């Protein structure tokens, strides 16, 4: 029983996806001297002032909250990179640009806890919002062609949070189409025109690759 996430609707709540994202590694620049931390998930440190070191995001945030470090935003979180991504997203209406699997959660956590470490925060944030909007639009137009012949939906490069948002809808929609497009329900007389219109969906699709 996963607490407050809605069991019928989705496997994960947004908070749970965020929790998973906190395991991603990020660079911090400590301003204190501290010995190596021995954790179940690995050893981190030693920490020396002004010497960058890689730690999981949750640890970075914990140290940041106690003013023990500065967080170095990842490379993709710069105005230059994001402008390029946004442009590419707009130019390729059927593809998703490769962004980190947890880009939505990571950027939100950094804006919450390390805003002053991000250069040009306003622009970065609005670029991220735009990128997410463009991408979500693509997801929606992809879903318009759903039918019972859809064995799998190919959404390469879609991020964790994006998948999580559409998962409940897709699952339900597929269930509906699967039920109503079955042979027991739709007898031979089903209009041929209809089935040809959706023939593009019958192209064998690769199943989603496990990450």
């Amino acid at each position, binding site marked *: 029983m996963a*607490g*407050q996430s809605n069991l019928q609707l989705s496997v994960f709540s947004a*908070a749970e996806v965020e929790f998973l994202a906190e395991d991603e590694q990020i660079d911090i620049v400590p301003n204190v001297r501290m010995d190596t931390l021995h954790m179940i998930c690995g050893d981190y440190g030693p920490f020396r002032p002004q010497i960058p070191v890689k730690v999981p995001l949750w640890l970075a945030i914990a140290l940041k909250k106690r003013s023990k470090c500065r967080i170095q935003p990842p490379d993709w979180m710069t105005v230059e990179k994001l402008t390029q991504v946004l442009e590419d997203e707009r130019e390729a209406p059927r593809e998703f640009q490769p962004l980190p699997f947890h880009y939505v959660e990571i950027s939100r956590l950094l804006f919450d806890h390390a805003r002053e470490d991000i250069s040009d925060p306003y622009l970065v944030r609005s670029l991220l919002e735009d990128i997410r909007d463009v991408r979500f639009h693509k997801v929606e137009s992809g879903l318009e062609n759903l039918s019972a012949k859809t064995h799998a939906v190919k959404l390469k490069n879609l991020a964790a949070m994006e998948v999580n948002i559409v998962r409940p809808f897709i699952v339900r929609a597929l269930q509906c189409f699967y039920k109503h497009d079955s042979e027991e329900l739709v007898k031979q007389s089903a209009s041929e025109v209809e089935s040809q219109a959706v023939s593009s969906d019958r192209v064998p699709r690769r199943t989603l690759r496990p990450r």
Partner: protein
Amino acid sequence: MFGRRGAQLCSELAQNDDERLHRFDNDLFEHVIEEANEHYHQLETRMVKMQQEGLDIETTQNRDYFGALIHHLSLIRNKRCLMSYVYNRSQSVQRLRWQLGAVLPADLQDKLNYSEIEFFKNYSELLGSYMTNIDLDLTVDSTPPKDPYIQVRVMDDLGEVLLDDQATTLLRNSIHLMKRTEAEPLISQGLLEEFIG
């Protein structure tokens, strides 16, 4: 008649979108049982009549047979409605244990019927002893934890409470820093609220 009340019983549950638990509808529940008994009685009357007429119940398909059939189907239908009502409520009763702990507030307890209260107690004990065995409280951290300590605001005068093995007086609207695992059940019960900012 013919299952209408049974469906009425279930539609009360189905319309319940906001996860609130309604009072167990004893009257309607009893009515449905009565109706089922009546169908059983009618079914029996038809069968006895056929037997008295010397007919083979297995193969004869006369007016009495179809009358009996309809009563039989109605009986099964009513049973399904009753079972579904009890089953779906039992799911909610289980959720109560996870959300509110082993002791139910009086107004919620009033909404359960006797068997449901017994079920809650037994389920609660079972879950409790399982958690004792594995030495883990499975009901905490229903949202992923950030810090071991959180700030909370007290919603009501709660008097003296034992927190972190220290007696603390919780007054309405006061703000406290406490262990997340200790705060969580109290937040879920609506006695505290997580204080942000």
